[in-house]
């Protein structure tokens, strides 16, 4: 059982997992921020971060809605929603890439 709480103003506890969340390119502009720190508790997974962000509503709910073409990276490698998070991890939200 994973219990996850999330605060915009982190107040760390003994079991707190601090995660840096990064928004790239179009997502950064749509969400109005480049990065932020979230504090979660228990044994959080990437899906818990996504759920918490969607719960904010507005642009977060819209941009991160199920079915949107957003890829997620954990510590600079593509990851899946069931990836577990450790203190100090970096989770990034990437729109479809357009390099080359």
């Amino acid at each position, binding site marked *: 059982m994973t219990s996850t709480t999330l605060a915009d103003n982190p107040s760390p506890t003994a079991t707190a997992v601090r995660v840096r969340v*990064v928004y*790239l*390119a*179009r997502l950064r502009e749509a969400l109005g921020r480049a990065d932020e720190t979230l504090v979660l508790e228990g044994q959080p997974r990437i899906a818990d971060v996504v759920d918490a962000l969607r719960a904010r509503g507005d642009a977060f709910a819209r941009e991160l809605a199920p079915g949107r*073409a957003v890829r997620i*990276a954990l510590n*600079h*490698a593509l990851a899946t929603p069931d990836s577990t998070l450790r203190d100090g991890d970096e989770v*990034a939200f*990437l*729109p*479809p*890439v*357009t*390099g*080359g």
Partner: protein
Amino acid sequence: MTVRVQSGDFDAGVEMARLRAGDARVGAVATFVGTVRDMNDASQVSTLTLEHYPGMTEKALEDIVAQARARFDVYDVLIIHRVGELKPTDQIVLVVVTSAHRGDAFDACRFLMDYLKTRAPFWKKEQTPQGARWVEARASDDEAAARW
């Protein structure tokens, strides 16, 4: 193997010469250069801004090169990708592959570009007369990568 992300321009001739310098096994050098067009989706493009995800970009490119090495018989690979503000006719990306024979050199070069287009964390933003817009990913790029 070398992967570079840089704002400055590159000289493809110099890089090709450097990659095969002194290596007499090489019988083929395949090179691809991607450049900025002045039109995209029926709009005039005055400036193209390339951004990336530092830290992940290098890892992603190195992973793509490792996959190319596993699939094709190549001696060495170079990828240079520019970031920052670019103008039409500017160079964006360089891929160079050395091999004993042209088949593997051509195939690896094409594979590297197809995978880079769909897997490396770069994003393009265009400045057009209608304003700035993020370039949309193309289904044809996914199809090109899926062929491999």
